[in-house]
């Protein structure tokens, strides 16, 4: 019996590692930007190209930056959650329309509802690169000092909103 003990222990350790591995999402790459100032940008607004939006405009407020696009399928899944949440008016949600056509984006918001305080247009995706965007939708929680406090990759679900994002927003707003 004793001779089986060692292989059995090794097998148990392996199973342990694999089990932990199953609970982790390989697509969720930790962002090096957390705790760093949100990269500055100034971009035209979706609904009025003559007006622009800068990160500096949001100084002193806790806000969400939501990167989306009309061509993005997962954004469609996330959108109703954002529309519902926007009604509570807890924090401004700024949209970043990533590598999209203005007409498509406007039509998308007209059809599905517009949860955004305003949307900035990142037509060539250059600002997206500065934010380390690799899979829309992505959402950043940015504090009053303009520091990125959290990044959520993938669609926001009611669960991730209530358990991850809102507690942090409440803490930062204090």
């Amino acid at each position, binding site marked *: 019996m004793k001779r089986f003990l060692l292989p059995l222990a090794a097998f148990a350790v392996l199973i342990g590692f694999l089990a932990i591995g199953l609970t982790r999402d*390989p697509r969720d*790459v930790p962002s*090096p930007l957390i705790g760093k100032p949100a990269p500055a940008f100034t971009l035209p607004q979706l609904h009025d190209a003559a007006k622009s939006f800068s990160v500096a405009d949001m100084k002193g407020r806790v806000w969400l930056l939501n990167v989306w696009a009309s061509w993005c399928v997962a954004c469609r899944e996330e959108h109703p959650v954002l529309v519902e949440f926007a009604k509570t008016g807890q924090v401004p949600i700024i949209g970043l329309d990533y590598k999209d056509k203005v007409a498509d984006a406007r039509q998308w918001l007209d059809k599905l509802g517009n949860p955004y305080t305003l949307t900035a247009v990142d037509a*060539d*995706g250059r600002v997206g*690169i*500065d934010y*380390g965007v*690799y899979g829309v939708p992505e959402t950043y929680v940015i504090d009053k000092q303009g520091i990125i406090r959290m990044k959520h990759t993938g669609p926001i679900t009611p669960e991730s909103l209530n358990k991850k994002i809102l507690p942090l927003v409440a803490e930062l707003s204090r």
Partner: protein
Amino acid sequence: MRRWPVLLMLFALVALVAGGVFAGEAAPLATNEAVEKRLMAISEELRCLVCQNESIAGSQADLANDLRREIRKMIGEGKTDREILDFMVARYGDFVRYRPPVKPSTWALWGGPFILLAGGLGALVFFLRRRNRMAPPPILSEEQRRHAAALLDQSDT
């Protein structure tokens, strides 16, 4: 006879279009061969985050295209390879590099295989030694052997 001018014009048109196509494709490569070479070398080192098992050099993902464009631009601005890699790491983290730097959070990654190898070699030596110690007793005892030899001698005569 009336057709000749039309044919000629067609030929001219084809030549013009073909010439235009060739010029459009060949020019960037010819003028920027060194840049393209560096671009390839750098982007081979970087992971495409959209399709994580492909490098930025090999991936056709939209993001990889954009990142190649950025790298090309930075090469044009005279940035060093080191600066370009730092640019990527600052945005996407160490994960973008296929060869991440050695630091406390990557010690297990770099050292793990060697620790496993050492463990395997240790186990091998341990089991080989134990097997030698437990060598099976000879099949015949000394007395049995003499007896057998005696029997064989007898049968010879």
